[in-house]
């Protein structure tokens, strides 16, 4: 008997220093690590949540924002069920890069991937990106939008919970493609849903 019903892979992307690792830490460990160093390559966390009384396991891949790791991080997009694109509301350049990120996602990720735009660091006074700008951008690109603060634990839980709910609905509607390793990027999505449900044979 497995201890979860669904397994979803969530990948966080975005410029260096926007707070991806902090979001993950806040969510998985409930802490805000001050002076968190830059992530190298990819980091991995796991968190099981409960949605409608069913256990959902979230595999969270926290990627490095630095340009030089882009090639390895891209390879993680592919098997993601949800991609969280993070920017820093107090840093215009991180917002300006969003189109580039979308292009990358378009290129490397599954086209049915759930995409969420997150404006992080709402605790900061020096906001540069008004909320509605981010919202507009998300709407234009068919993304969910949320503003969070990892420091204040604002909206972090909600972010991941909504992802879990949304993905579970998709999974239940069988919208989520079945994994088939031998097929190309079109059908080839990941194991987890199929996997986990068959592991938890009753």
């Amino acid at each position, binding site marked *: 008997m497995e201890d979860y019903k669904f397994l979803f892979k969530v990948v966080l992307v975005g410029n260096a220093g926007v707070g991806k690792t902090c979001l993950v830490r806040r969510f998985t460990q409930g802490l805000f690590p001050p002076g968190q160093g830059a992530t190298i390559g*990819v980091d991995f*966390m796991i968190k099981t949540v409960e949605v409608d009384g069913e256990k959902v396991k979230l595999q969270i891949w926290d990627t*490095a924002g630095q340009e030089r*790791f882009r*090639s390895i991080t891209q390879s993680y997009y592919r098997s993601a069920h949800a991609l969280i694109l993070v920017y820093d509301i107090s840093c215009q350049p991180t917002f300006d890069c969003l189109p580039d990120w979308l292009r990358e996602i378009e290129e490397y990720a599954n086209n049915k991937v759930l995409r969420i735009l997150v404006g992080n660091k709402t605790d900061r006074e020096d906001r540069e990106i008004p909320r509605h700008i981010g919202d507009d951008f998300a709407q234009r690109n068919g993304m969910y939008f949320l503003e969070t603060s990892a420091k204040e634990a604002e909206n972090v839980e909600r972010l991941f919970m909504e992802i879990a709910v949304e993905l579970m609905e998709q999974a239940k509607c069988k919208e989520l493609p079945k994994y088939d*390793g031998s097929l190309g990027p079109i059908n080839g999505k990941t194991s987890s849903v199929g996997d986990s449900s068959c592991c938890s044979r009753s």
Partner: protein
Amino acid sequence: MLPVNKIAHRLCFMMSRTLYITCCCGCCSALRPRYKRLVDNIFPALPQDGLVKSNMEKLTFYSLSSPEKLDRIGDYLFQKASRDIYRRRHGFVIIAMEAMDQLLLACHSQTLNLFVESFLKMVQKLLESTDPQLQILATQSFVRFANIEEDTPSYHRRYDFFVSKFSAMCHSNHTDKPTRDSIRLAGIRGLQGVIRKTVSDDLVENIWEAQHMDKIVPSLLYNMQGAEKYETVSCLESETDTREGIEEPPKLAEACLRELVGRASYGHIRSVLRPVLTHFDRHELWLPCDFAVHIFKIIMFSIQAQYSYSVVEALMQHLDASGGGSGTRVRAARATVLSNIVAIAAGDSVGPSVLEIINNLLTNLRASVARDSEKESDERLYQEALINALGEFADHLPDFQKIDIMMFIVSKIPSGRGKPTKADCMLQSILLKSLLKVGTTYKTTELSKAFPAAFLEALLRVSSTSEARTRALLQRILHTLLDRRANAPLLLVPTVQYEKLGLTVEKCSRPDLIFISKHGHAIFSSLYEGLQLESNTAENISAIYTTLSLLAIELASEETVCDMLQLILAIQQSAISNPVLSTAQQCQLHAITVALAALVPHVLALPPLGDYIKQIIEARREEAEHMLPPLSDDYDVSPNKLPNKLPYLMIDQMALGECLKACGIEPSRLQTASPYSGGTAVGLAHRHSWVEAGATQGRDSLADISAGPVTELDSANSSPGVQRQTQYDALDEEYRMFIEKYNYNHRPSMPHFGTYRTDNEFWHWGHEDAHAASVHDARTSLVFVSVSISFDHVFLDDFSTFSSHFSHPTQSENVSLEALRRAASGPSEAERRDAERRKVSLNNTFRTAPFDHLLHITQPKYEIQDKLEEIFNSISEEPLLPIGAGSPAGKTQNQPYTKYLTELFLY
């Protein structure tokens, strides 16, 4: 036990099963199935006590005797461990893992499949925890599992998570360095395990898929790039200690990369290389390039030999790939890497792949030349690196392929004709540099093999290019191909003191002689021509000197000595008479003339010749240092010391002939053998007589040209053999006349000759032009008077035939040609009779004649400079045709010319 008991047990079992399936809680241990009890028993009361060994043995025995229970045992262990992880009771987790390991090893391979599922789930569970200790433990178990060879296919197994997680571990950023290192090590080991597990099994995950390689390869490289120093060991010696011994991530990553590359088949090599290249781009690791060199060497050393070519290919395609973003320096670094690895590939490259590599390199070179680079020095670095790669590659190919490659490169050189653009020149020089690089690696054995006709022809074609530096480069190529005995470095600078150099000289081989008799003329002509160019620098001249001296050494033979001496004299003559040459160039030519002349007796042991040249050198040392080596760029020479004012310091053709005779070399053989010029001895006498004849005739022909006192000429010639003098006059007159006739008839056919030849011919026209009037005027009187004085009947007959033709210019060309030929051979026979006597007298005459006189004789030549220039210009556009290719008529025409040609040497 009573049967009731048994039934109760069964009932309990069913119940517990049902319970287990539905709600996953077996409560009372008495009712539990046996395997569960066995599993429970292996756990001690306190985790510190470790696995209960005796109970573990019981469990192992049980699972071996009833393997159908294995899957349930595994599942149960996994659940227990999951709970323990959740409750953070790591001690028990470790014990569970240990038990699973032992069971795994104890299992027979057929039954393994049943157990593996839960085993892997267990490993994954441990990897998902944030505790480094558990992650490392999981990796160890996984590696143990990976080393087991399964014989049952495992269709349903997926390693996606493992690859992702192990790669993430490879990038661990743990704050504690030892922990970080051990996590990274575990990550690498895990990847190694995945590779081992999947690479040989077609049914599981295809590890070569981009999504996996994009994780594995950068992870390995990332760990390797941290190393302090990169020492590339060539071969698989590291294979021995890959097991557990390596404690540094870079070393282990290297071993893993080697293993990965070593297992890659042809179709998969690309999927490894692509992430490697991307990683280098992303992490900007090309500069400095030692890490890149290190990695690519590792790849080359560990790749299956037959695929090594594809690495070279991939790197070459990547040279320019990300053109815009990457600077020229990066490109240069990539080319450097290429040059470092290309040699490793060379050994295994065969057939078309070789030329493909070369072609690719050349294409890149051309692209580089065409590119407008902001930083030219960087672009040059890049080109140098490419050329180096070319050289490295060629160096490791067998010799016959080097020739192929050189011919291939030569064929890519833009033709030297017309007005070359700057880019053309650059490309030309770069290709020549590549050629030089390849040539340096070639070890010449036989000249004919080193210079296939087409190759030689192409080289000589380039040798007349307008760019002086390019010409010098071409000479260097000739040096490296000609020099078989490492003499070239000694001969870089012209010298006359060969004793000190310690040259290696060996007798010339038969095939080489055949080679030089076939191509000698073309080579010599082109070198001669190369010396006549206005744009020559001292570098060009000394380069040609080196080529000639190498030729003299490599072809040291009595059969070639005449050719060499003729060329030397021709160069000397051109130094005097070529109007385009500057004083410096003239001095340089004189210097190399004497240097070469001194080399010939040194190489062949011809003491008389050596003595003679020494005399000249001594004389020059006293009077005209500027006509001796070393060459300088600037000559400060007073007008009366100009080379053409010092004819007595020249090498005398007749004296050379004498010296040869004294050494027992038969110079007459050359009359027919060498297409380069006519016989030496016979020709010599003849030519001398011509000069003197000209002098005696001076009354008519030279008087108008030379302002000098005519009477002096007579008095000068009145020394010893006056009587013979008349005879020579007659001879020469005849000769002169048929030449004149010939010129009138055949001038338009001039282009049939080689450039060198026409070049010399021109002089005669010049003279004819100057003398024509007088000769024509005098023809009835002078000629027939001469004939009456003539001594030989045969000659007389010939001559009369000739003169009859002469007096009937309307006669068909054919007949007159015939006559010409006969007339041409006539005098030689006649002369041979008393050649000895004549020569002595002539020598005396010539040597004792006042230099002013001789000077005056030579003077007229300079009045026809305009004409010369015009001809030179026309010549330079003339293709260089091999002499043998001429028409029969051309051959006939050759004869008189051949004889006449050496006339020049006098000056």
